């Protein structure tokens, strides 16, 4: 807690709250969690006109103080001063969408009634104008009894004015705090409607750009085809756009390794840095471009308003497996990482719906699997096209994602019939207006993801690699015996190998399986470390890329089985930890780990045996 005055940014979903938050705080944001719950806490620092700093916290969007899901509950608790680990805000900035006044004013009235110093940001006035609406902020301010500032967050309009008003509010004596019971819902609604009518100066028939676009994008057939095409382009882009920056990063890692070799005398420190640190972590870092491209697409889909359309299109399909279209959004986020995906299930109100979504979220191919898929695909799948400019490697990648999705749908269906049986929940959702996202907002989002990834690489991945390097380097193998087999890690892997040999896994894979529980990417760095250690005295082997070395040691059947394993395996401690926290115990977490391991084993086995039978072994 910073000890600074706290201002909360609150409003309906789709009121443009996050854009306003970004415009007010810039890139100086802090991401964290509220204690005890996994709702993300986003805060930043804002300077008032006289230079006084204020902490601004961006609360999850909600429609009223009557929460319908766990994240809306946080908003209510913070505003009422009941949230653990957060002091009661000193002032509120209520964000309302200018083109949806009747609706957003109802919540604003509810908030103003609390008696906290409040300023209303009449946001997205430009879009209201596009829709043929002209509003008078002065009338609105008089009717509401609090200052009202017209803002266009995406163009930074009205921000100085907003800061000035906050300054005025924060200088007054602290307001008496009331939680007077809200008036009857219908009475507040009518009041909101009356005020909205009064504030509207002119209203011409709107151009309905959104409705026109929706005719195409929500079309039962065309819309579905477009959604599939979008996802396909996304996965192709992850492969093709990333290759140039990834090669550049790889060049830097190699140069760094050479620098270590040139500056340090041969010995244990040299080996440790080269094999354990540069080799291991470097093998993961080169996947940063792919991960950022994936996040770019997901942030774009969210910011443009398309994500809600995707949920609409998917609802009919999701309903067949007992879920709602709303579950599609956390599942799509899980393509980036299951941890935020599982956290995003907090917007699902039905508990069984939510539990099912959590249980299948790890089946979505997260970005940590990209390094693994990337390595194996580039080593074993030829880089040629299969026609129409579609690359074979990208196609295989796409298929791996499809297997994850189909597996998830079947799992959801089976779970809903058995362990999470219950009445199917509904699908009620707002479809926001389409908007062109502001590049700065996308950049801030990408920057935050890059920092999180690099932190992972610098902490958990580095640490796991160091432990692994030690376990693999000692005791020293006598001549003629492979170090990776003779070492402590090699002996442990030997034990695991008995279990996974039937599904085509070799000792390299057995060795990588355990540390990859810490983070999936470690599978790649672990294999890289194995080869670096084994190749210690073999200068020629060191010059070869990791992929080339794999080709010499793995069969295609083994490689495919390894990919199939990674589609289903319940890995990564972070996912398990967040599942435990979200399901409040080990019961469902244990269940999830169990069923995913069984699936992974079966899938790898079937893949291997089929491939061997087809003569690929």
């Amino acid at each position, binding site marked *: 807690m910073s000890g600074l005055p706290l201002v909360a940014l609150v409003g309906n979903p789709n009121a443009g709250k996050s854009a306003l938050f970004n415009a007010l705080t810039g890139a100086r944001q802090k991401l964290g969690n509220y204690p005890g719950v996994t709702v993300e806490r986003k805060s930043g620092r804002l300077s008032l006109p006289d230079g006084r700093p204020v902490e601004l916290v961006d609360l999850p969007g909600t429609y009223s103080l009557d929460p319908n899901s766990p994240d809306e509950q946080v908003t209510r608790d913070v505003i009422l001063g009941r949230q653990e680990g957060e002091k009661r805000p000193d002032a509120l900035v209520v964000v309302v969408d200018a083109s*949806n*006044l009747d609706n957003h004013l109802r919540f604003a009235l509810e908030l103003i009634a609390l008696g906290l110093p409040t300023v209303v940001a009449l946001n997205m006035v430009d879009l209201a104008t596009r829709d043929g609406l002209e509003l008078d902020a002065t009338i609105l301010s008089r009717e509401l009894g609090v200052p009202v500032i017209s803002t266009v967050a995406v163009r930074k309009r009205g921000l100085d004015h907003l800061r000035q008003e906050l300054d005025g509010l924060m200088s007054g004596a602290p307001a008496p705090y009331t939680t007077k019971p809200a008036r009857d819902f219908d009475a507040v609604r009518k009041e909101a409607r009356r005020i909205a009518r009064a504030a509207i100066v002119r209203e011409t028939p709107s151009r309905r750009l959104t*409705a026109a676009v929706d005719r195409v994008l929500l079309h039962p057939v065309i819309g579905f085809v477009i959604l599939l095409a979008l996802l396909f382009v996304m996965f192709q882009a992850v492969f093709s756009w990333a290759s140039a920056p990834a090669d550049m990063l790889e060049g830097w890692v190699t140069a760094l390794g050479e620098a270590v070799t040139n500056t340090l005398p041969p010995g244990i420190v040299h080996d440790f840095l080269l094999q354990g640190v540069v080799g291991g972590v470097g093998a993961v870092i080169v996947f940063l471009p792919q991960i950022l491209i994936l996040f770019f697409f997901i942030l774009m889909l969210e910011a443009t308003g398309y994500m809600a359309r995707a949920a*609409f299109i998917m609802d009919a399909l999701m*309903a067949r497996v007992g879920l709602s279209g709303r579950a599609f959004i956390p599942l799509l986020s899980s393509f980036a990482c299951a941890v935020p995906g599982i956290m995003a299930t907090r917007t699902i109100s039905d508990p069984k719906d939510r539990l099912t979504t959590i249980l299948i979220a790890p089946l979505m191919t997260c970005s940590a699997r990209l390094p693994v898929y990337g390595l194996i695909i580039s080593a074993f799948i030829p880089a040629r096209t299969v026609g129409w400019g579609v690359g074979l490697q990208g196609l295989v990648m796409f298929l791996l994602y499809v297997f994850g999705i189909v597996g998830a749908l079947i799992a959801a269906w089976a779970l809903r019939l058995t362990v999470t049986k219950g009445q199917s929940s509904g*699908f*009620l959702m*707002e*479809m926001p207006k389409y908007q062109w996202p502001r590049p700065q907002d996308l950049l801030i989002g990408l920057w935050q993801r890059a920092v999180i990834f690099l932190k992972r690489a610098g902490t958990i991945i580095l640490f796991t690699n160091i432990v692994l390097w030690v376990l693999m380097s000692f005791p020293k193998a006598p001549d003629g015996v492979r170090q990776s087999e003779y070492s402590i890690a090699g002996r442990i892997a030997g034990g695991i190998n008995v279990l996974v040999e039937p599904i085509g896994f070799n000792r390299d894979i057995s060795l990588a399986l355990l540390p990859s529980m810490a983070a999936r990417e470690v599978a790649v760095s672990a294999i890289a470390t194995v080869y670096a250690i084994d190749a210690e005295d073999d200068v020629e082997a060191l010059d070869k890329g990791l992929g080339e070395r794999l080709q010499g040691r793995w069969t295609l059947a083994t490689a495919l089985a390894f990919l199939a394993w990674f589609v289903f395996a319940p890995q990564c401690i972070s996912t398990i930890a967040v599942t435990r926290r979200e399901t409040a115990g080990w019961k469902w977490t244990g269940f999830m780990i169990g069923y995913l391991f069984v699936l992974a084993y079966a899938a790898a086995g079937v893949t291997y045996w089929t491939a061997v039978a087809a003569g690929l072994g």
Partner: protein
Amino acid sequence: MRLTDLPLRQPAYVDLIDWSALSPSEGQRLREFGLCEGASVEALHHGGFLGKGPIACKVGRMTIAMRRNHAAAVTVRTGPDGAGAENEA
């Protein structure tokens, strides 16, 4: 006529909502979306391959999506007398 039967893009008004057909939280969410007796409503899109999917409709100035079983709880009417309800609300 039920909202499920309302032809696409024909402006109408909500006549009656059978709140008992909705769970308390669903009813609350619909009210928060502005769906109430007298509100203007217009069906925009039917989702799903056979039109069995959710319905997207405009309520006031907002577009919302709901499943058919929920939409069936909403009775709407078209015609001139609806305008009176709109202004009174």
